[in-house]
């Protein structure tokens, strides 16, 4: 399945500086979350409403 969400602008610039936490794992995951959030935001700026309207399923069990 093709990737339908091309990433938007570079987000490294406006991401907040990672807090110096011991281990660094948490900061890393927060960074990843920030860039994902930017990508989601960009992708939903266009036709979110159309997408929601056209998602129609039949009932199942």
């Amino acid at each position: 399945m093709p990737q339908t969400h091309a990433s938007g602008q570079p987000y490294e610039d406006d991401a907040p500086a990672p807090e110096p936490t011991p281990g660094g794992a948490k900061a890393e995951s927060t960074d990843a979350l920030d860039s994902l959030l930017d990508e989601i935001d960009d992708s939903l700026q266009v036709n979110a409403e159309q997408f929601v309207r056209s998602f129609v399923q039949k009932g199942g069990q």
Partner: protein
Amino acid sequence: MRVAGIETEYGIVDPEAPQANPILLSSRLVSACRLWADGKTAPWDYGGEDPLQDQRGMRRDRATAGADMLTDVHEWDPAHGRISLRRRRGSWEDPAHLNAVLANGSRFYVDHAHPEYSGPEVASAREAVIWDRAGDAIALAAAQRYAVEEDSRVELYKNNVDGKGASYGTHENFLVRRDVDFDALARLITAHLVTRQVVVGAGRVGLGQRGERPGFQISQRADYMETEIGLETTLRRPIVNTRDEPHADRKHWRRLHVIIGDANCLDVPTYLKIGTTALVLGAIEADDERLEALVLADPVGDVTRVSYDLDQRTELALASGEKATALEVQRALLEISRDYAQSADDLQVLARWEQVLDALGRDIFAAAKDVEWVAKLQLLGRLRDKNSVTGEDGSAVPLPWDDPRLAALDLQWSRLGDGWASRLAAAGAVTRLATDEEVATAVSTAPQSTRAAIRGAFVARHPELVDAAGWSTVVLDRETRHGRLEVLHLDDPLQTSHPILDELG
């Protein structure tokens, strides 16, 4: 652990043709799945199904059953009553209801208007996670093959609602001892099924069956549970489903068919919905008296009471006259379940359950890596804040809950392959309990702990001999002294080898 299994009905969409017939799309997807399986696939054996037998001892009259319930219709001939299926080859198939029994012991097929993956029988919560994710990988591989074959594509969604009123299910199945009184079983498991939402809910934008009121709730399915107990699964959906089809020796076993659960894209909820429910069933089988004190006074009302209560403060009325929050009921069930752990796997389930309850009790966002509704709510909250506007008093006003961007995020969360939940997992932001390698192996190999090992091995190694296969049968089409269609009965779900398979190699 007891034998269990998960069935997932996926949402299906042709993004270029939203009006496309979903039965046709699903049927073509199953065809694509068979091509992907490259010969290692078999038709379904409808011989053992009995959708009209009720756990409460009665039988639904065929004439009053809705068409949706007649899943055994393939062997029903109005002129002759029940046909001996063994005279009829499973290779005859209704093109709108295609099936593929696969080498990993699962069944991929068209159920109503959805593609469904019925995972193989597993014997631990961790195996449930591995073979559930294997199902997603198989569905995705089928969709990729579909794109090659059909010159169009489908997207698959592992959720349970479309936001317009339709719901489709993710069901769990648990093997339970037959000598447990069914009414007692239903009464005692209900408190767990209602309150476990706080641990295993997938989260949903919108309140009401059509999402008619703005907001966020814990569970996908809560608004569709309309009665305490019943035989139906497509309307008047019950908290406890009474379909009595054990797919095992009826003298010894029942199958509890749980339809209240959500489809989960995170590992921990899949793990806990199987693991905790299996443990509570152990307490019920042992007739643990402490469970009676947790019976809810209004379970149907409590399903939405719990689902709408993001702060986890609402007290539920108990039949005893006492009150307790969903988290308190869960904690009591955890304490009771400690006495029924039988293996290292069970102890791990208890530890994870406790850890998640502790986190939820402290600050729900402490559970964001493990609890799906919290992970989703956190992402939604950040999107709302990112797009906030300045109100009249100068304060920041977040995006309102009825903004279509939030509904879109909710739907896209569960899209197989590139959905936001998958992206969160890839970013390391959620807990994984199975490795990608384990999942890749489980795509083509059955669990070795149950009879799925036999079914899977026949399909993987001797597909040309398999006329059809079901949960408790494998029908072989070969010349023998008994005749051509030879039915192997696998009534014990824990049987892991078969002499004929050993002979054939």
